[in-house]
C-alpha cells in the first residue's frame, strides 16, 4: 500500500453508512445504558438520577436477582461441560469413520439452523405433563417415574438445560471435527505403538492437540449460555406464572432484565442488570481464558 499520495478521503464515504448506524445503535446505547443504570426511568417521564441505588438494591435487597443469578450459574455449569464433552467425544468418534461423516454432521447441525423459539415450543410438547409427553412416556417405558417437567420448580431448569444441550450439540461437533481432522495421523500411530487404547489416545492426543479450539469453544459457550433467553421465555411462559415460571425457578438474568425493562418498564433498573451481566461475562471470559491456557 505504498502510494505516492498519502491517503484516500473517499474511504470515509465508504464507511460512513456503517459508522452512522454504529454510532446510533451501538456507541450511544453503550453509554446511554450506563447512564440509565444510575437513574430511575419508566420511558414516560424523563430519567431521574438516583446514584448507585439500583446497584445497591440489586445486590443487597433483591432476592429475585440472586435467584436469577443462581439459576443462570447452574444453567452454565450444567450446559457447558456436558454439551462440550459430549460433542468432543462424538466428534472424535466420528473422525474415525471413512464414510458418512457429512451425513452425521448435517443431521446434528439441523438444530443450529432452527429458530430457538420453535425448538423450545417443540420441546415444551416433548416435556408435556404426565400423560401425553413423549419424554415422560419414554421414562415410563424405562421403568422410571414421570416428571412434571415444566410445572415443578425442581425440574424446569434441567428441562431447559437438556433442550439447550441438544440444540447446541451440532455446532460444537462441527467445530471439533474440523479441529481433529488437522491433528497429524502420525501422533495417533505413535500412541498406538505405545499401547494406548481409544480412550488413551483421546486423552493424550486428541484433547491436548485440540486445546486452542477447546479454549475458543468453551469461552464462546460460557458467554452464550450466560445470556440465555429465547428458550427460557418460551418454556416458562404460558404456565400461568410470571416470566420465571413457577416460583421463579426458571428465571435467568436476561429474562429478569426483560421482566424489569419491558413488562414493568423499570428501564433504569433493567440497565443496571444489563451492566451487571456485562461485568459477569467480561470477568468469566478472562477467568476462562486464563484457566484454559495455563493448564
Amino acid at each position: 500500500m505504498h502510494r505516492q499520495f498519502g491517503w484516500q478521503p473517499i474511504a470515509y464515504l465508504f464507511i460512513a453508512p456503517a459508522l452512522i448506524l454504529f454510532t446510533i445503535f451501538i456507541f450511544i446505547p453503550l453509554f446511554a445504558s450506563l447512564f440509565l443504570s444510575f437513574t430511575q426511568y419508566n420511558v414516560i417521564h424523563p430519567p431521574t438520577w438516583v446514584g448507585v441505588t439500583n446497584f445497591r438494591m440489586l445486590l443487597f435487597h433483591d432476592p429475585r436477582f440472586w435467584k436469577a443469578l443462581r439459576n443462570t450459574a447452574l444453567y452454565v455449569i450444567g450446559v457447558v461441560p456436558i454439551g462440550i464433552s459430549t460433542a468432543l467425544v462424538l466428534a472424535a468418534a466420528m473422525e474415525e469413520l471413512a464414510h458418512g461423516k457429512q451425513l452425521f454432521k448435517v443431521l446434528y447441525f439441523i438444530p443450529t439452523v432452527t429458530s430457538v423459539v420453535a425448538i423450545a415450543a417443540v420441546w415444551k410438547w416433548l416435556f408435556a405433563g404426565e400423560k401425553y409427553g413423549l419424554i415422560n412416556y419414554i421414562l415410563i417405558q424405562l421403568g422410571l417415574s414421570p416428571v412434571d417437567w415444566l410445572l415443578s420448580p425442581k425440574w424446569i431448569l434441567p428441562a431447559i438445560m437438556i433442550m439447550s444441550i441438544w440444540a447446541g450439540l451440532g455446532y460444537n461437533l462441527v467445530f471439533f471435527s474440523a479441529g481433529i481432522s488437522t491433528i497429524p495421523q502420525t501422533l495417533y500411530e505413535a500412541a498406538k505403538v505405545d499401547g494406548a487404547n481409544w480412550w488413551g489416545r483421546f486423552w493424550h492426543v486428541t484433547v491436548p492437540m485440540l486445546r486452542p479450539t477447546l479454549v475458543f469453544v468453551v469461552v464462546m459457550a460460557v458467554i452464550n449460555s450466560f445470556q440465555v433467553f429465547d428458550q427460557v421465555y418460551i418454556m416458562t411462559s404460558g404456565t400461568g406464572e410470571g416470566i420465571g415460571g413457577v416460583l421463579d425457578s426458571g428465571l435467568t438474568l436476561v429474562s429478569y432484565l426483560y421482566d424489569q425493562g419491558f413488562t414493568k418498564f423499570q428501564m433504569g433498573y433493567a440497565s443496571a442488570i444489563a451492566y451487571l451481566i456485562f461485568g459477569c461475562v467480561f470477568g468469566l471470559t478472562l477467568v476462562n481464558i486464563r484457566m484454559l491456557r495455563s493448564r
Partner: protein
Amino acid sequence: MGRLNWRKLVIVMVLSLGALAMILPYYWMVISSIKPPDELYTYPPRFYVQHPTLKPYIQLFTLLPMARSLFNSLYVASAVTLSNMFLCSLAGYAFAKLRFPGRDTIFLALISAMMIPWQVFLIPGFVIVKQFGWLNTFRALIVPNLAMPFGIFLCRQYIMSIPDGLIEAARIDGYHEFGIYTRVILPLITPALATLAIFTFLSQWNSFVWPLIIVQSGEMRTVPLIIAVLNGQFGANFAMIMAGALVVTLPMLLVFLLFQRQFIRGVFLTSIRE
C-alpha cells in the same frame, strides 16, 4: 481386523443413536402437527398418524395473520441481508485496502462492540427507536441491523487476502475507488458474500428479542413472534403450535439442506460473532 470392525460398528451405532435423538423431535413436531385432538392427547403416545388432518394449519392461517407474518419475516430478512452485503463489503474494502487517518482505531472499536453482550444495547435501542417514532414499524426491525460489525469484519478479512497489485493495476487503468470496489473487489469476494448472506438471513429469520420488544400489533409480527403468541394464547393447542414451529423451521431447513457445505464451512467464518 475383526476388532477394528467391531469398534467401527460401535461408533456408527453411537452416532446413529445420537442422530436419532436429533431427528426425533422434528419427527414428533411433524406428526403432532397433523394429528386430530383424539390422537394427539392419547396414552400411550402414537408414533404414527391414523387420520391426518390439516386443521391445525388452517387454524394457524385463519385465526392468526400467519401469511402476513411470513411476508414480514421474508421482507425484513431480505432487506437486512441485501443491505449488509453492500454496506459491509464497502466498509470492509475501506478498512482492508484504503488508507485514512483513524482507520485502525475505528476498526478496533467495531470489533470490540461485537464482544459486548447485546443486552447492554437493548434498552437504549428501544428508547431511541421510540424517540424516532419507529415502534411497531418495519424501519425499527430493519434499520438498526443494516450494517452489522460482524459483516464488516468478515469482509475485511476476506478482502485483505486480495493482492494489492490487482488494485494498483486497476488504479493505473484509471478506475475510481468505487469502480475498483464494484469491478475488482466484489467479483473476488463472492464466497464471503454468500456466507454473509446465509448467516444474516438465518439470524434475521430466527431473530426473537428485538422484534419482541419492537412489535406491538398482530400485523407487524415476524414468524418467531407467532410461536410466542401461540405459546401464550393457544398453549393447550399443541397441534397448532407444532404447525407454527414447522412453518418457521421449514424454509431455513430447506436452504440448509441445499447449501449444507457452505453452512457448515460458514460456522468457522462466523464463529467470532457468536
